[in-house]
């Protein structure tokens, strides 16, 4: 029997604003879901077999928050599966569920309303080892990421100018997006004049926050072809989690993304992904992370060359975040990976890799028309 292929047939979104005070997260998800279903004429009460919701209790301010997932998706009293992690992990779960043959159509949602989290830094602190790291009370969670940034820049021989090239190009890419309130034509010189905030990172290296919800609909091949003329096929998936303790992991490279990408590329039959991929949609909650992922996935040998020559720009041979990433859109917490996937679907003109990395968990998807 041929393996079941899985395609993305539709998505919808709500928000992508620093704050959405007029709607609850459920109303935002309802808006995103209604758009996703309307595009392909689906009634979730009768036509969607299962639902996946991605969120975390501490960000929501609700314990056992999965109970608050079904209604707004049309999933009341139907199979609903929750993922405590980025939306791309939800897509991977839905992909596997369809692969079993037990489900034909699955909706996946992720959302974030960081504007409602008044003690943001304290919630981030709760992600640290409570016995050993938390009592050290470092001023902010950015500290860990700055250590990674420093180690990565050393490993890849990158300078602040190199980071500036990426930040400037990605924020300019965001100007072409309809969900990027923080996009700008920031120049490298302006970037370089920014004051250092933590380690090698300055203001424009840190993604601002945004409120957003996204809903995707996935379907088995037969059903996907009935629903749309242009599905986005998922041809490979991978994920991995690194150690949480910084001294136990390699800070200059993202081994979780490396392992996740090897898994995904193998499934997709990509022997030389650096040449075969037409684009990358990378996690951009910090500027350097997008570059670190490109490097860790083994897509380039020496980052400096493609970065400085423009190969990673939107007109280059391996464009990264062609409509900007979290630096332009803002970071909607668990929904960031789905924002990357949305851009991939919008511009799908070849085989691409979509990556999210939240905490130390990476997820990689390979998609193609």
């Amino acid at each position, binding site marked *: 029997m041929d393996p079941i292929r899985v395609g993305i047939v539709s998505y919808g979104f709500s928000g992508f604003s620093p704050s959405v005070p007029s*709607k609850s997260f459920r*109303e935002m998800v*309802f808006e995103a879901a209604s758009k996703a279903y309307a595009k392909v004429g689906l009634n979730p009460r009768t036509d969607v077999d299962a639902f996946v919701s991605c969120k975390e209790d501490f960000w929501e*301010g609700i314990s056992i928050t999965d109970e608050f997932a079904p209604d707004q998706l049309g999933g009341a009293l139907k199979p609903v599966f929750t993922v405590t992690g980025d939306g791309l992990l939800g897509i991977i779960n839905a992909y596997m569920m369809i692969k079993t043959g037990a489900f034909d159509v699955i909706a996946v949602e992720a959302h974030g309303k960081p504007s409602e989290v008044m*003690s943001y830094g*304290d919630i981030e602190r709760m992600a640290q080892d*409570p016995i050993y790291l*938390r009592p050290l009370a470092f001023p902010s969670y950015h500290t860990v990421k700055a250590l990674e940034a420093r180690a990565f820049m050393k490993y890849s021989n990158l300078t602040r100018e190199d980071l500036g090239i990426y930040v400037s190009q990605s924020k300019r890419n965001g100007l072409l997006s309809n969900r990027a309130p923080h996009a700008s034509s920031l120049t490298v010189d302006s970037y370089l004049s920014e004051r250092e905030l933590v380690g090698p990172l300055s203001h424009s290296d840190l993604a601002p926050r945004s409120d957003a919800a996204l809903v995707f609909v996935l379907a088995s091949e037969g059903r996907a072809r009935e629903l749309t003329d242009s599905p986005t096929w998922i041809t490979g998936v991978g994920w991995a989690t690194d150690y949480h303790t910084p001294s136990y992991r390699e800070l200059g490279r993202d081994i979780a993304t490396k392992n996740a990408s090897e898994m995904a590329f193998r499934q997709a039959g990509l022997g030389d992904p650096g040449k075969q991929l037409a684009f990358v949609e990378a996690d951009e909650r910090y500027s350097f992370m997008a570059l670190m992922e490109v490097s860790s996935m083994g897509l380039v040998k020496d980052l400096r060359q493609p970065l400085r020559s423009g190969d990673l720009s939107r007109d280059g041979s391996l464009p990264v975040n062609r409509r900007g990433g979290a630096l332009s859109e803002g970071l909607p917490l668990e929904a960031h990976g789905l924002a990357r996937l949305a851009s991939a679907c919008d511009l799908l003109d070849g085989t691409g890799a979509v990556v999210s990395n939240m905490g130390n968990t990476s997820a990689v998807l390979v998609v193609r028309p």
Partner: protein
Amino acid sequence: MTDFKVTPLSEDSFRNAIRESTSPRAVYDMAPGEAYTKFFEGLREGKILGTKCPSCGLVHVPPKVYCQYCYLPLTQWVEVKDEGFVETAVVVYIAAERERLEKPEVVGVIRLEGSGDRYRYPGLMHRICTEPEEVKSSRIMGAKVKARWATERKGSINDIECFEVVSWK
């Protein structure tokens, strides 16, 4: 009887054990959203408002902007009487750590009049101002109750102090 060799733990053993305490600080300012905002505005005026589904006819109290059963947007607002019937009720004698409350509290689910079927109806989980004995005897089941409104209302579910019995079944 067998003799066990044991090393009893002293108070000092506990005092000297290495431990690390942590206090989560989780503060949120949540948007009630379109539906709850209008609902709370209604409560401030002494009204219980709901949204009516154009397909199944169910009036949603507490309201939503969508019907979770028909998956249709709800835009029709209706006022529901502040009277209803007790579907179920309990007497609560303990707090979260099972410590005895000084005064037990009666909590129930009120079916408000207007629409619905056996399991789906406009309704509120709220306090019921009645004697615990009326609950223990199950006399409260099916009793007709009415909202006791707070004198100072500020747009909150606590604008209803509790539901009081109007007549017994």
